[in-house]
């Protein structure tokens, strides 16, 4: 981790922890003041000049603290607008699919239509994610859409955000599980001293590790190939793997918490409910397994290994 990234992580960790349970508008002010929206905008344009690994770090922390704000969508929109020689005044968001988190709060939205990236606004009809957060449909006013003339894989980028958030959320669930089972006594000793509980938590740690490594691998591919879509293989592999991690990990986290983890008073639900929604966003298992499978069959058996290695080798 670079020194810059370490500082960035510290700043994000503190800020997001402090925002827990707050108001949307407060978030907007504080996140704006901290300059997170400009994370991927180059320093020459007064941005932070971060890379995709930096974004992964910030989104991991957003996931860990269950940040209730469309941070990733905003960071990506600001970057793409910069690519197009523009900058965003209001809360511009990037939309990779039909519904948009906090669409009602958005100014303009970046969407892809017929292979073009457009800046557009529209009528919002309210919806809700499984976590109980706004997730709205927008009926776009295509007549007023502005083509940006840039290349980007919006859907893949949304998938990347969810993978990173999942990595953080699973680590947070693991932390809760360790804390809870260390404190809670049953049958005369802490739950964490039971071998079966230890084995469940170990398996949760394995899944959290898989999601974290998948996120980093996808970030490395984005750093290497850019956001035009060439990193789709790595992003897809990461999304598919993190969806498995959610399936296995969320169940284990709840298992070791017993009924306590199932209440609104206990913070585990903030993680579980979000993660369950993310499994659909940026492509579900069926979507990515079909894509990845088809790509692999095209490459062939030796070709798969050639591709996987060539895509990480220098040069």
């Amino acid at each position, binding site marked *: 981790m670079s020194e810059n990234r370490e500082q960035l992580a510290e700043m994000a960790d503190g800020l997001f922890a402090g925002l827990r349970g707050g108001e949307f508008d407060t978030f907007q002010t504080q996140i704006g003041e901290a300059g997170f929206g400009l994370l991927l905008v180059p320093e020459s344009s007064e941005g932070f000049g971060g890379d995709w690994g930096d974004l992964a770090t910030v989104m991991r922390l957003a996931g860990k603290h269950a940040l209730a704000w469309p941070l990733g969508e905003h960071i990506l929109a600001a970057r793409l607008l910069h690519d197009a020689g523009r900058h965003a005044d209001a809360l511009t968001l990037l939309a990779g699919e039909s519904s948009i988190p906090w669409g009602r709060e958005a100014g303009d939205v970046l969407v892809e239509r017929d292979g073009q990236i457009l800046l557009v606004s529209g009528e919002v009809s309210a919806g809700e994610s499984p976590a109980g957060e706004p997730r709205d449909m927008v009926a776009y006013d295509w007549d007023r859409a502005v083509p940006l003339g840039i290349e980007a894989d919006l859907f893949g980028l949304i998938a990347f955000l969810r993978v990173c958030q999942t990595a953080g959320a699973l*680590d947070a669930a*693991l*932390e809760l599980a*360790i804390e809870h*089972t*260390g404190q809670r006594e049953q049958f005369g000793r802490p739950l*964490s*001293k039971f*071998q079966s*509980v*230890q*084995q469940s*938590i*170990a*398996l949760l*740690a*394995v899944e*959290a*590790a*898989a999601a*974290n*490594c*998948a996120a*980093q*691998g996808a970030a*490395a591919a984005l750093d290497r190939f850019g956001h035009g879509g060439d990193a789709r293989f*790595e992003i*897809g*592999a*990461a999304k*598919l*793997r993190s969806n*498995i991690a959610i399936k296995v990990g969320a169940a284990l986290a709840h298992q070791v918490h017993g009924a306590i983890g199932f209440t609104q008073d206990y913070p585990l639900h903030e993680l579980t409910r979000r993660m369950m929604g993310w499994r659909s966003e940026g492509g579900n*298992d*069926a979507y*990515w*397994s*079909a*894509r*990845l*499978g*088809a*790509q*692999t*069959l*095209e*490459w*062939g*058996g*030796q070709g*798969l*290994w050639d591709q*996987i*290695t*060539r895509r*990480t*080798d*220098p*040069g």
Partner: protein
Amino acid sequence: MQTFAVHPFEAPENAQSIRSDLRAFLAQHQPDKDPVLRANCWTEFDPAFSQALGAAGYLGMLWPSQYGGHERLPLERYIVLEELLAAGAPVGAHWIADRQTGPLLLRYGTEEQREKYLPGFAAGTMYACIGLSEPGSGSDLASVRSSARKTDAGWVLSGQKVWTTGAHISHAMLALMRSEESSERQSGLSQFLIDLDLPGITIRPIIDMFGTHHFNEVFFDDVLVPHGALVGKEGEGWKQATAELALERSGPERYLSSHALLAAVIDSLGPDASAEVTATIGRLVSEMWTLRQMSMSVAAKLASGVDPVVEASIVKDLGNTFEQEMPLAIQAVLDADLADGSDLSRLLATLLQVSPSFSLRGGTREILRGIIARGLGLR
């Protein structure tokens, strides 16, 4: 908290040339044998292949040149291992010597031991096996009963080791023996490097459930070994042996040893495969890709001098699970008749039978998860 702090794998600049050199070597030396042997490839013994590999400089890659090593970088060696395993090369004969025994001698061995064994290990002409398990010990490796008694002439060894992979083709065994009489558990144990042609040693095959011979029982009947056979410090055997085990947890062999099946299935299918088969391939590839990220991250951490105990155990546990599930997942969707005699069916049938052992070898799933739990502060 982050349990798996991801360490970036900075591949050496010459990564591609290492791969192409090795692929050229494999094209010349891949024995013209049954492709089924490429399944589970690091258990396949092929001394001729190991010698050729040693002669080409791919063994003892990190060791000092005075011992026949090649002083290459750890991540260069990692790339070589990846390529060998992905190709299903029969690396079983030299595997333990190159991966564990050699590094252990460099760390704890005497000058005499290094000079005696390392050049042969690096040449691919001498092989080693590990003597840890004993009858009744199972996963409880500290329950060692085999004894080493110190005499003026040397150490006298007696007892029995079991599940010893490759003892029948190995020149030496690195064994954990109880060197302090009536000591208990982890204390009073020492490691000895024992030449297997000494009088009093009997090696008997244990044939596994599908008829192949990898395992052995090894009996020590008052075997006299010189004082110089003691490795490291007397009584420190447990610490040394567990450090040795850590060397085997996170390498690419934890997710690539059965890669031949995945490659063969992909090649047999082509773009018109059913949606169900295609999706299964996609899912397996996503897991394999993720495991590679994880394994590379641990390799990078090891190369930087850190010993990531928890991360390595995580990779091993997940890798074992992946390799165990892969043949079953393929069987579940592939329209294959396991009796049709085709290479693919035989490959699949072989791995279906071997794969239940994948969560046992080199530490059972429960032991690994216990190590992870300890790392998380639960024990």
